[in-house]
């Protein structure tokens, strides 16, 4: 480096290092992409012969020819739906409060922020334990029901919803609020009429990602009896239930090969559901980005 000359070309060794590093990085990305494709291919290879609407309409069974995921799909929709109804409003309101109303950073608000950050990092299975101790048994004693499971998943995704909603709210230009306040609006009017509507695409994107995380999560509900054999759809918050990930888990642990294929088919169904959710989230974000750039 000491004998730097503008006219000199790169030494072959540096050029080689540069090229091979680029190759290494590209390889890593390509390998990551291929891994996803390979997983999907393997699942498909193990289950394409099973693909029919029976998988969606039939119920769990001990007979591999008569198995479907209907109760698991409805169970997942119930549990994740109720969990979203609980956590999205609370999460978005909390985010609005922290961003718009909490005032200057002080001990209290920074303690609350740290707490939320840490909650987002608590292992999922620990939320199952608090659900077991307080909701399914203990003070509430709701048993192993849709209600208990929803509360557990809601607690799990609440910190994630708060974090993504805050980011979306922070992305709204401060001039919006300043303009509203200058025209005599109260803080709440500025938030409700301007900041909230303009951050909705961002909030929606983050919320969908949080909800799809809840839909793919299996660990906390292992502790809440969701691995059971349920041959009916949930009818309410007090119903027994099973969910897609744990139905897959159950068939995967069966020693018979036929059930392994069924587990693969179930995985594909779950992946299709989650990819669709993710795709919606990504498109929404693209839309929001384009809108904000104009």
């Amino acid at each position, binding site marked *: 480096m000491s004998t730097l000359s503008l006219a000199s070309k790169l030494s072959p060794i540096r050029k080689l290092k540069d090229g091979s590093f680029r190759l290494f990085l590209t390889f890593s990305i390509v390998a990551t992409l291929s891994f996803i494709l390979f997983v999907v291919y393997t699942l498909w290879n193990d289950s394409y012969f099973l693909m029919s609407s029976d998988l969606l309409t039939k119920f769990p069974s001990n007979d591999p020819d008569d198995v479907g995921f209907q109760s698991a799909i409805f169970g997942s929709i119930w549990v994740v739906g109720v969990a979203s109804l609980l956590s999205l409003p609370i999460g978005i309101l909390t985010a609005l409060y922290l961003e718009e109303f909490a005032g200057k950073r002080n001990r209290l608000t920074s303690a609350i922020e740290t707490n939320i950050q840490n909650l987002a990092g608590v292992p999922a299975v620990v939320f*199952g334990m608090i659900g077991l101790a307080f909701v399914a048994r203990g003070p509430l004693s709701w048993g192993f029901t849709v209600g208990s499971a929803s509360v557990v998943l809601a607690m799990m995704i609440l910190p994630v919803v708060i974090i993504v909603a805050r980011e979306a709210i922070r992305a709204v230009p401060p001039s919006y609020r300043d303009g509203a306040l200058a025209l005599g609006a109260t803080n*709440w009017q500025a938030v409700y009429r301007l900041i909230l509507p303009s951050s909705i695409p961002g909030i929606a994107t983050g919320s969908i990602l949080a909800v799809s995380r809840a839909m793919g999560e299996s660990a906390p509900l292992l502790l809440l009896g969701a691995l059971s054999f349920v041959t009916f759809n949930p009818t309410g918050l007090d119903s027994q239930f099973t969910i897609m990930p744990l139905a897959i888990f159950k068939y995967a642990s069966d020693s018979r090969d036929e059930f392994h294929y069924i587990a693969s088919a179930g995985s594909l169904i779950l992946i299709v559901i989650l990819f669709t959710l993710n795709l919606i989230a990504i498109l929404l974000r693209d839309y929001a980005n384009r809108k904000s750039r104009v």
Partner: protein
Amino acid sequence: MEVGMYDLSQTDRTGSATAEGVSLAPSAHLRRRNLVQKIAVNIMRAGTVVTVVITAGIIFSLIPPTIQLLSEIGTQIFGTSWAPLFIPPEFGLLPLITGTFVIVLIAMMVAIPFGLAAALFLSDYASYQTRRFVKPILEILAGIPTVVLGLFGLYFVNPKLVEKYWPIGESVGYSALGAGLMTGILTLPIVASVADDALSSVPRAMREAGYALGATRREVATKVVFNAGISGVVAAVILAFARAFGETTVALMVAGSYPKLSGNPGDPMQTMASFIGFAGIGDQPTDSTGYRTIFLVGALLFLITLVFNLIGNRIILRYREVYE
């Protein structure tokens, strides 16, 4: 935002200052507006209380059973055999701890190089268009449910890779190696996205200074950008570590549920998290020893991940302050 708060008290003050018989008291409309704001703010504040309640709930659910069990078993937790649900029960935590660390270390060996490569690629090599394509891929990878990775580990990695090519020991269908690899895939997107955030926020001027000195792109990426963003890279690794630590389903499906004290990654092992899942399936009655064991292991798991998350988030906060 303080302007708004100030606004509220202002209205009240003007209200009391009546002059020349014309009431300057806030109109009914204005008062209603302010009331709405007060109610709304209080409802929103209640949301933050919920998060505090959840944390308190976690701590209060973990501590009593843990203390109770610890007072029963005392120093038995330092033993080398873990079989709390058997008769007679054994409570040596060592196999769970080694099992956890073996799997987490293998996971880090996958997640760190691939995750950092992805982060460097995104921050310094990818064009805007490529970035728009690669970012969603990482998000999709992050969105693959753990149970699917567990299934892939159990049906593909264990029988077709570990059993065939791992040279040491006899394969039994479950392996810590398979679980570690799958957990690595799981945590790769975390390393990539946190590190990418850090590396992308390294000021452009530092890169350009590097190029101006005649450095190649690799030299700028590895010697300038990487070093400037190192705290973010460390945070990425710590957060991924914490995530791998708490991963339950993959370890349970791929590494099995036999808490073997072994240093051979080809062996089945049990992690702290997968023990909780395993014992939870068994539906332990409240106040039984099995029930308390779940909470003992859970308390340990919570404590360790808490420490890692605190450190990781603190580092992120610091580099954000430096560059923003």
